[in-house]
């Protein structure tokens, strides 16, 4: 068993009378892809928003077993979760910096490293060599990821001008440029054609094998979920209704009911758009 990276315990998120996430507990392991699936409005994105500090959970503890010691995410401010706990994420509706170039998007992701190297701007303003080296390193890292997502030739184009699928991959690359220990992907295959989602599978398993980081994956595309997840958590109305390996989950009657609304079908949860 791989070591646990993220422990979610009794996470509850209320919006007024609506309970979006209801007493949810699960764990994600390092070097594994943990998928969170469930019908629309099940509370998947809300879990991510709690993890990355955009929402303060009503109840619950979110422990990240970081190399430097355990961190309680629910007590940290949003940008610190990314900066210190090194939890990176992508968004369900892509959030690139559309009028900046592809390369700039990746460089901005390395802001904190560069900022320190620039002596909080003053050093770099006077041309310290330390900053120049740091910038060179940032460029190399960006190029590496550009090659991995096949966008080297478009490095100097505006990110907003890329086709949809490229934007999705660029957003993942940008998240990876922050050097995360946990990567949270919100529907990375949404809007991709079957060939592109097959490529995405390879890309994500590549990240898992190479970087040895934990990946949390929200996805409706079952070819992606069933193909690459090590562990699946199924949500419905904010509650965990099942969890386990892809094989277990796809046969779980509660899951089938949640997806199809009728008990007899033994089909894989239907692919939805």
């Amino acid at each position: 068993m791989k070591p646990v990276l993220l422990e979610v315990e009794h996470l509850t998120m209320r919006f007024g009378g609506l309970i979006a996430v209801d007493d949810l507990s699960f764990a994600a392991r390092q070097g594994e892809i943990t998928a969170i699936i469930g019908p629309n409005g099940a509370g998947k994105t809300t879990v991510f928003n709690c993890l990355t500090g955009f929402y303060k959970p009503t109840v619950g503890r979110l422990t990240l077993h970081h190399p430097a010691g355990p961190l309680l995410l629910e007590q940290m401010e949003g940008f610190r979760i990314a900066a210190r706990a090194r939890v990176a994420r992508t968004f369900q509706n892509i959030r690139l910096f559309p009028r900046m170039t592809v390369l700039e998007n990746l460089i901005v992701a390395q802001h904190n490293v560069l900022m320190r190297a620039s002596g909080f701007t003053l050093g770099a303003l006077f041309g310290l060599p330390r900053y120049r080296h740091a910038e060179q390193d940032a460029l190399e890292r960006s190029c590496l990821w550009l090659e991995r997502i096949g966008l080297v030739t478009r490095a100097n184009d505006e990110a907003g001008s890329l086709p949809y699928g490229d934007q999705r991959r660029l957003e993942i690359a940008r998240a990876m440029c922050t050097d995360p220990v946990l990567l949270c992907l919100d529907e990375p295959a949404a809007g991709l054609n079957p060939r592109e989602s097959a490529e995405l599978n390879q890309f994500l398993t590549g990240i898992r094998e190479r970087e040895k980081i934990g990946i949390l994956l929200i996805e409706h595309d079952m070819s992606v979920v069933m193909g690459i997840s090590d562990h699946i958590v199924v949500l419905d109305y904010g509650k965990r209704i099942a969890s386990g390996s892809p094989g277990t989950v796809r046969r779980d009657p509660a899951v089938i009911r949640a997806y199809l609304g009728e008990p007899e079908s033994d089909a894989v949860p239907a692919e939805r758009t």
Partner: protein
Amino acid sequence: MTEAAVPTRIASAMKEAGLAAFVALVLAMPMVGLYTVDEGGVLVVRTRFDWVLIGVLVVFAGRLAMAYWPATLRIPARRDAAHVAADGHFNILKFLGIAAISLAVLLPVLPVTDRYVIDVATTVLIYVMLGWGLNIVVGLAGLLDLGYVAFYAVGAYSFALLARNFGLNFWECLPLAGALAALCGILLGFPVLRLRGDYLAIVTLGFGEMIRIVLINWQSFTGGPNGLTSIPRPSFFGLPFTRNPEEGETAFHQFFGLEFAPYHRLAFLYYLILALALVTNAFTMRIRRLPIGRAWEALREDEIACRALGINPTNTKLTAFAIGAMFGGFAGSFFAARQGFISPESFTFIESAMILAVVVLGGMGSQIGVVLAATLLVVLPELGREFAEFRMVLFGAAMIAIMIWRPHGLLARRDPSIVLPPARRGAA
């Protein structure tokens, strides 16, 4: 186009033009159609409906012409500039920039230049500097600041008070004035920068007014509505620009063995603001390529994404606000030194609006666009002086024209802050 489509196009164009003409009629009736004359101490209202008619006809014809303006003649509002710059093609804007700087440096010694020209040019440069300063806040960081004039005022009053009360000279005051303005920027920014868009705009607008009202009411300190007079003039490295210097001082013209001429001081002030403006520009160009500058632009593009990447939005905005304010403060010091007299009247909202117009018309974030817009906004009303009361109409018409044909500003373009060299792009 099918044959049936032609009449509908004409009809719709006529309808549009008719609507525009109607709006013009409603507006022009009270504003142009009525005027007052002084008859033996009594104001009498007169009418001049013929003028209204001319105006309405012009609008009608103009709107019709716009509908039939051949599409090919329209200038694309935004070109894909990134490619051009990145691939190292001959860059016309760079050339334009160098030409503009050369012209600016040579201007005072050109034979056509007289006191009037140098005076207007100095005013242009003040707005260029203010525009560049505000560009950091609005153009780069995307924070709509409607109270920028407050920092201009803080700089001006800092200089005036420090110089009068402590006898500091211009160069000693300049960094202090900048620092005080930046401090004000931080103090204002701290509570308000969590607001966005319109809300931020309204609060900054309020702040600008607050500073002005404090200046008016704090009689004992700021001189109230009367302002501050006899602000020391900057000297040329200790050489004053006076005809008869005080005992033990050498005046500029004596030192260089020249005939005394008031023009020397004007030219010196001109070069001073030119230097200050160029420093602002150099600073902005440099900082855009540093992490903080990129973070500003990223924040303008998407604040939520920034937070997800670990960028501290509050600190990043605060630095933009403070640095923008600092340059406003520098410009304010210069303004006080040039005028020798300041009062709260110089720092009204209209001034903020003017600076913002320079930034927006120039094309947000575009450095050379600011120069163009500042020149236009200062020189146009000057040219319009002959038209007396129609100056503002001319001014407004020019603004509208720019917004129609260049909705993103005169020179909307963005240079990437870092480019991947072609060799690396091809080799991979």
